[in-house]
């Protein structure tokens, strides 16, 4: 089942004074479009987890309403509501006394599915999250690694094919390498599933990476900004948001932009056997006075600079000096810049899947993109 729209209308949660206001939510209104990942991000105590738990009514709001596809969650029997919403938490919370297969089939069991249907679903889901069903189905949770447990947690949440999933710091308890892999796998999964996902994290980098939309919350449960990651990085609505996303937000934004988003500079090219004098004058006439040597299919062979292009004769591939880094259209500008800095060059060569040259990514071009956005901020 694909995602449903989730709408918060003037949702407020107040706690007694003894609670010191931590986790309170103040008049929150926002709409998560169906099939989107909405990341709730903010410092601890900002009410992001409270917001999440009000959707499946683990916490009841003081006032306001939450609608899933237009239906008020308050008007449904609470256990039935929860069985239709996937729930994943940081500590996973697998049931230690049930096998992995039984854990995944928990909600189907509550819904009274037949054993055959459950078994089929378990197999399907374990495969989906990248675990060999035959190997894992009959194990107990304590026999799995943290990353494997977290995958089972996701499979369990998906078991009854809920339109909405709530994920509370789902990748917070695993080490950074495993986290990165789980994030990528989950994004790949989500492209197929298109669930509506509310995702809580305190890590702005994770928010930017995972979110189609991001809700930045600040202490007191106030929604500071709601928008796409690019929006939030480019136009922080307040000092709080600007500080929260960090001084390196320009660099973070580069990680959201890809080579394909850039206007590529056409290089001056030549093939082995071309006349040196003619190529030389073409290269020197260009503001980027280098000659890119390519083969007959357009694949890059190397660079020639002013000194290495002979005055007469023909160009041979032996004259080329080492290559710049090659980047694809999918490479983020952050990675492209980093590759150029590592290689100590001014340009990277953008190539297509066949390896043919499509243009150059220069440090200047990246700087220009950042500059252009910077101008918009000060406007």
């Amino acid at each position, binding site marked *: 089942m694909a995602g449903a729209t989730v709408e918060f209308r003037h949702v407020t949660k107040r706690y007694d004074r003894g609670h010191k206001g931590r986790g309170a939510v103040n008049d929150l209104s926002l709409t998560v479009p169906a099939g989107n990942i909405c990341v709730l991000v903010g410092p601890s105590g900002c009410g992001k987890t409270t917001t999440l738990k009000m959707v499946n009514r*683990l916490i009841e709001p003081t006032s306001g309403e939450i609608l899933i596809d237009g239906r008020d969650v308050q008007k449904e029997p609470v*256990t039935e509501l929860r069985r239709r919403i996937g729930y994943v938490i940081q500590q*996973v*919370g697998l*049931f230690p006394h*049930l096998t992995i297969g039984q854990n995944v089939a928990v*909600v189907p069991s509550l819904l009274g599915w037949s054993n055959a249907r459950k078994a089929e679903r378990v197999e399907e889901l374990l495969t989906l999250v990248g675990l060999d069903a035959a190997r894992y189905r009959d194990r107990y949770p304590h026999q799995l690694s943290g990353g494997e447990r977290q995958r089972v947690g996701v499979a369990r949440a998906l078991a009854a094919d809920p339109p909405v999933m709530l994920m509370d710091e789902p990748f917070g308890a695993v080490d950074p390498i495993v986290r990165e892999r789980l994030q990528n796998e989950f994004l790949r999964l989500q492209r197929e599933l298109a669930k509506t996902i509310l995702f809580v994290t305190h890590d702005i980098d994770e928010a930017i990476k995972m979110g189609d939309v991001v809700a930045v919350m600040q202490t007191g449960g106030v929604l500071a900004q709601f928008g796409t990651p690019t929006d939030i990085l480019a136009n922080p609505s307040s000092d709080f948001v600007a500080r929260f996303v960090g001084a390196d937000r320009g660099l973070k934004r580069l990680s959201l932009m890809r080579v394909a988003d850039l206007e590529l500079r056409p290089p001056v090219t030549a093939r082995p056997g071309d006349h040196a004098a003619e190529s030389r004058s073409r290269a020197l006439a260009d503001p980027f006075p280098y000659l890119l040597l390519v083969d007959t299919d357009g694949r890059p062979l190397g660079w020639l600079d002013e000194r290495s292009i002979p005055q007469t004769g023909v160009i041979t591939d032996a004259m080329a000096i080492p290559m710049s880094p090659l980047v694809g259209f999918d490479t983020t500008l952050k990675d492209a810049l980093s590759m150029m800095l590592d290689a100590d060059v001014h340009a990277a060569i953008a190539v297509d899947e066949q390896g043919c040259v499509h243009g150059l990514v220069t440090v200047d071009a990246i700087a220009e993109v950042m500059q252009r956005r910077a101008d918009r901020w000060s406007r």
Partner: protein
Amino acid sequence: MIRWDWIGRNLDDIAESLAEHLTLTVIAVLVGFALSFAASLLIHRRRWLYAPFTSVSGFLYTIPSLALFAFLVPFTGLSLLTAEIGLVSYTLLILIRNTVAGLDGVPAEVREAADGMGYSRSQRLWRVELPLALPVIVAGLRIATVTTIGLVMVTALIGQGGLGQLMLRGFNRQFPTMIYVGFVLSVALAVIADAALLLAQRALTPWSRGGVR
């Protein structure tokens, strides 16, 4: 020193004492467990009940068994009832403490996951919390059972007692063989009962690595 011939001639008598000992123990542990279990579920729902329940059962636990039986005899006589009231009293503290601790030991995230997936309160209790509490509950049952087997001995002084009766008769007649037989059988009974409960717990909780966590 041991009159084997006496043992040979009195096997029926000995078996009867053993059976009586076992019966007294089983009744006490079952009744004690039923009461403690109900009390523990109440405490699980209403936390403030923990202190009064444990201080009453702790008070009973502290009173020496002979004194407790002596208190009861003028009211309930030299009867099975007197014996069982005393025996049950001594199981309560251990069983309540362990059952509550077992339920408390269920990790918070497991409880939260159960709620989040739509378990009702009673489904959560019976399908998640109690199975997970089982090793600690059984640990309590083991101690209660072994303790009760020892205490049944003392009920010989109020006319019950199973193997205790055998030992007391041996003492009164200055006949050590009866004392030794009663002693060895009671210790063996305790060891076997303890092992049987441990095995049962292992069989019921295949998910836990050791026995007791």
